[in-house]
């Protein structure tokens, strides 16, 4: 099993009521803590709607402006994070209307054949002895353990992540980089568990293939 990343709820550390009361009272310490905890996640979500990191950063600040000035309107009918992210999404969408169109999450089609995890050429065909089994199997990497990737491999992975399709980049970013649970991601993005897994699977599989090209170039 993969290591389970530490849970990092966007508003964790404080209960919703505590956070809301603190924001209403203008408590800067709590505000800065929640801001810092949610920043990367908010930016990743915003980034799927707009074309640049810089605009995504602007949207996060605008969202916080709306949260701080509008916190009195939060009635506690949903989780605070859900409310915050619906503001974020609305802010991002209004920018997006001027930039480009995002494909809604409901369009995810769970068809592996469209985008196989591994190049089909790597498997034996019906004419071979063991159809569907490895023809060119993966070879163990030289100890690419946690944080032991060379700087160059890390940059490579980072670039590959940035180049994933929007929704895959978002899901892999929230799950594997920021350490959110599947439940948190599905709730924040109003996404089904199944669609979340399909996007995660495609994204992770593609990144594995890119790391393999880098770490074991002779084999691919």
């Amino acid at each position, binding site marked *: 099993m993969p290591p389970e990343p530490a849970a990092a709820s966007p508003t964790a550390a404080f209960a919703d009521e505590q956070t809301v009361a603190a924001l209403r009272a203008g408590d800067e310490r709590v505000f800065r803590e929640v801001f810092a905890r949610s920043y990367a996640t908010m930016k990743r979500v915003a980034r799927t709607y707009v074309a640049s990191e810089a605009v995504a950063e602007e949207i996060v*600040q605008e969202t916080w402006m709306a949260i701080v000035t509008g916190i009195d309107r939060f009635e506690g009918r949903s989780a605070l994070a859900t409310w915050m992210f619906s503001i974020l999404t609305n802010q991002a969408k209004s920018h997006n209307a001027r930039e480009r169109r995002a494909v809604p999450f409901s369009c995810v089609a769970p068809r592996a054949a469209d985008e196989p995890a591994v190049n089909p050429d790597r498997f034996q065909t019906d004419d071979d002895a063991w159809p569907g089994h490895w023809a*060119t199997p*993966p070879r163990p990497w030289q100890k690419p353990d946690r944080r032991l990737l060379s700087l160059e491999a890390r940059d490579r992975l980072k670039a590959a992540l940035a180049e994933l399709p929007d929704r895959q980049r978002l899901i892999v970013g929230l799950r594997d*980089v920021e350490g959110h649970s599947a439940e948190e991601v599905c709730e924040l993005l109003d996404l089904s*568990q199944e669609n979340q897994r399909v996007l995660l699977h495609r994204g992770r599989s593609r990144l594995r293939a890119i790391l393999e090209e880098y770490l074991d170039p002779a084999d691919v």
Partner: protein
Amino acid sequence: MHDLPHSPHNGHAASEFDVPQDEVTCQQFVELVTEYFEGALHGRTLSQVEEHLVMCDWCVTYVEQMQATIASLGGLQEDRRVEPSGPVLAALRARRSGGA
């Protein structure tokens, strides 16, 4: 490309075991890895995946590569500390002075 292996599973000649009809292939296995990690497999499919891992060293390597990929992604978290903008802080402070 390597030569085609004689058996799908390292270290076993084909005659050592008969592959049951409903065994998953490596190509099917790699599509089930995320669901396996996520605990989303149940019943027969889960046993098929677990049985496959017992027999297939290559797919064990594949699983290890996926785990290494996930762990490496965890190392990409940015530690750059971004500050709230001046206007946002001003709006917060205005709340404190009762002006919001």
